[in-house]
């Protein structure tokens, strides 16, 4: 069986491995979000013609999935290890499978399958094609070729690999509850996260101030729009993330009726599409500096001038 790596050892090995593949190691982004995809290091950076390779751990908050720390597999906040590579490398599947070997998972000793799973996040105007990766029947990774982000078609296409760290670690450490995982140095996941799980669940389901959250949503939305008009892309994006998280809190509280729900989601989508366009425009103005091939860079900038 596999060597029992601690959660932090798993993170370290993944970081080591992906850094060696040319990914920049970014840090978790400091605004609440539901998934690693929503970090600006993925959402914004996957848009536009510039290459981008990054890897990072992203704590992801999903208020409705909170279970007061009582369910062994469901969490208010879980951790994703996110790898984003644009353009998608030709051997991305092999790179991924080799990363599992780094964690001591020898494919010959297991059953690893790529099972179709096309990903969609309508509220962020995103869609992609790919798989869930199954390790002996357990979904451990979401593997996606982005096709549309923020309503914009990908060119080039970014590949996203999202490891569910808790699930992967549960498998590697062979525990039935995430709270029994060893994070590092003998300290258990439950020692760190049990109370926050309980408190955040209590807050999300019972205690949150709906009135305040409704107001927050409206304020954040207004602020995002105001900033977008001034082309302050990154601050605007922070407020869009805040809108999204505030909505998730309201949703968990059962404060949003089904009819209203669609309305909120479309308000967030509107902002996501807007910021996506502003981001590319801003990079264009900067001259797409991450494109190292000068001829190609000039061509892209020239095309843009002709379009206008």
């Amino acid at each position, binding site marked *: 069986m596999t060597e029992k790596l601690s959660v932090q050892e798993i993170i370290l090995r993944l970081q080591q491995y992906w850094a060696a593949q040319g990914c920049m190691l970014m840090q978790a982004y400091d605004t609440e979000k539901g998934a690693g995809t929503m970090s600006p290091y993925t959402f914004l950076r996957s848009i536009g013609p510039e290459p981008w390779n990054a890897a990072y751990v992203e704590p992801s908050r999903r208020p409705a999935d909170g279970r007061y720390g009582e369910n062994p597999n469901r969490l208010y906040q879980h951790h994703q290890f996110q790898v984003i590579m644009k353009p998608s490398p030709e051997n991305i599947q092999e790179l991924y499978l080799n990363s599992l070997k780094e964690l001591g998972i020898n494919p*010959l000793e297991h*059953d690893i399958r790529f099972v179709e799973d096309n990903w969609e996040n309508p509220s962020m105007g995103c869609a992609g094609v790919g798989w869930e990766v199954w390790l*002996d*029947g357990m979904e451990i990774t979401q593997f996606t070729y982005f096709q549309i982000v923020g309503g914009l078609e990908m*060119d080039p296409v970014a590949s996203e690999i999202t490891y569910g760290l808790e699930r992967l670690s549960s498998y590697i450490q062979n525990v*039935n509850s995430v709270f029994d995982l060893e994070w590092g140095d003998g300290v258990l996941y439950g020692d760190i996260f049990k109370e926050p799980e309980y408190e955040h669940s209590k807050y999300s389901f019972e205690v949150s101030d709906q009135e305040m959250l409704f107001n927050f949503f409206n304020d954040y939305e207004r602020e995002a729009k105001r900033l977008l008009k001034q082309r302050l892309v990154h601050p605007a994006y922070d407020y869009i993330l805040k809108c999204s998280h505030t909505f998730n809190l309201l949703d968990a509280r059962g404060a949003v*009726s089904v009819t209203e729900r*669609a309305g909120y989601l479309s308000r967030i989508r509107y902002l996501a599409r807007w910021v996506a366009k502003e981001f590319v425009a801003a990079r264009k103005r900067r001259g797409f500096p991450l494109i190292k091939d000068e001829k190609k860079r000039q061509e892209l900038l020239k095309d843009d001038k002709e379009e206008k």
Partner: protein
Amino acid sequence: MANNFLLEIGLEEIPAHVVTPSINQFKKRASDFLKKQRISFKAIKTFSTPRRLTLYITGLADKQPDIDQSVKGPAKKIAQDADGNWTKAAIGFSRGQGATPDDITFKDVKGTQYVFVEKHIAGKPVEEILPGMKKVITAMTFPTMMKWGSYSFEYVRPIKWLVALLNDTVIPFSILDVTTDRVTSGHRFLGKDVSLANADEYEEKLTEQFVIADAAKRKEIITKQINKIAADHNWKINLDPDLLEEVNNLVEWPTAFEGNFDDKYLTIPDEVLITSMKDHQRFFYVTDQEGSLLPNFVSVRNGNDYDIQNVVAGNEKVLTARLEDAMFFYQEDQKKTIADYVERLKKVSFHDKISTMYEKMQRVQVISGYLGKLIGLSDNELKDLKRAAQIYKFDLVTGMVGEFAELQGIMGEKYALLNHESPVVAKAIAEHYMPISANGDLPQSAVGAVLAIADKLDSILTFFAAGMVPSGSNDPYALRRQATGIVRIVAEKNWNFDLGSTLDQIIQLQNQENVAPKLDQAAQIDAVSNFVKDRIKQYLDDLGIRYDISDAVTTGSHTNILFNIASGKMLQSHKDDDNFKAIIESLTRVLRISQKGSFKDDDLTVDPSLFENDSEKALNKVVSTAANDYDSLNAEQDFDRLASLENPINDYFDATMIMAKDDALKNNRLRQLTIISKMILLIGDLDKLVVKG
């Protein structure tokens, strides 16, 4: 010499459900291509796995057949001037054919001499034709297409390698940056790349690399392995063909294995256990010989049996976590009452533009109550129907259906029984979704069938009223399937009612009871009737009723599903009768001429004092006899009545000038014909029938 050609597209894992349709498409496109290129071949064998689509084409001709062709040019008098010199026209023509004027001959065409060039086109060798397979590959279409890398090309998944071998020679072409070669890829983990000496050793070489490329063979292996496990344990395993097909297309080297779960989970309803195993994990469930579920499962690994205990343990762990969740929901759900759930439906939307689920149930109570009485349900059935309609969507807000959406209705039945609802009510809740697919099972109980019709009728009517009408292939709410469901249920249950007047009644009743949606449903009665009639036509077409007959009976004056269907069957049975043509011709004559008049229903009295000849009198007499109780007879009897009018109608037309100058005479005659045409239109617009002489 006969040639064999191997063409393999290597891909990143294709969705399992796409593999078989894609290989069939590939084969068809390649076969069409070769036919168009005039390259004969003996057979195309296919291979397919999640990572490859392969054609093995045997007995290919060496080359296209040569073509000898006489190409006609201008007339001789244009081709040569008076002195017999070649004109520009002749020179141009011969050059265009790759020849010179020396090659020109003259031939007589209908008395005029024309210029001809005899052309011999040598057939191209097969190796020059086969690079055209590139287009065969790139023209393939798939349900979901994707881009990758920096390419704008779209395909089902990224193309990783291409093998194109004519006997032992590579046929060169490239797609994006992948160039054809003789190297194929073995099993992702167990095998390695292997170079093929020729096209014929493909299957054998891949087997050495742990790939069973022949999908049928792979399926046979899986079936044998599973049957052996079943026999070893004295189990029964239902080899669901859809699941087997999917599993077969998830593996290249199958090894079936068994696993277990704690039997405490057997207290969860079977449907939940089966869904967890089959739909979520792609496991085959296991029963004893009597069909009772056992705490075991069978799955198939993509690999051999090395360290298979890891695979078994992992799969057991995943299933246990799922069942633990299911058990939790099953217990939690039972802590609330049906009334609690129904209350929550007030917050669940049926559709943003229509209403909540709760309001939908209120409307369906009215519809089902009216329909139930109309078709003569017993008092007890009506009581159960009323109760079922009050609660039938409650399971949508249970935890279990939230987690296992496919169990809607099924959990409703279970929970209804646990809450001491009558078995008839519980059954109706499960059955109201039926039929789930175009040819799916129909509700068996009368109460379930009425609820199913009422639920579907409400969906169609409200979606139409909200402006969401299916068009072309765009039918996101599957309203066509629901209408087909109504037609099938009514046909099977033999329920006789007029749809138009029923819709009219239920809309009025909904208004009276204050449960109507804030939409103009009444304006949609005709549109909904016609929508249902389209499905009746489809239903008749599927029964093999001739297209003009199904068309005629679904374009008549009213919508009574049962009567429309009976009319179609009736006309089909008479279409070859000796006198059928004569009857239809006299009736359609009436239909056509009667259109020249337009009268209200209460203005259709024929005045005998205006008759001018005996044929008018005679026709008037037989029509009044035929019209007696006409509306309440069956299709066969109605048609008999119409047939009896044939001779009187013909005599009438022979002796009577319909469009008389005198308006009173004319209108009196048109009234007579309108009465008959109304009777005809009850059966259908018989003018649409094609009667051959």
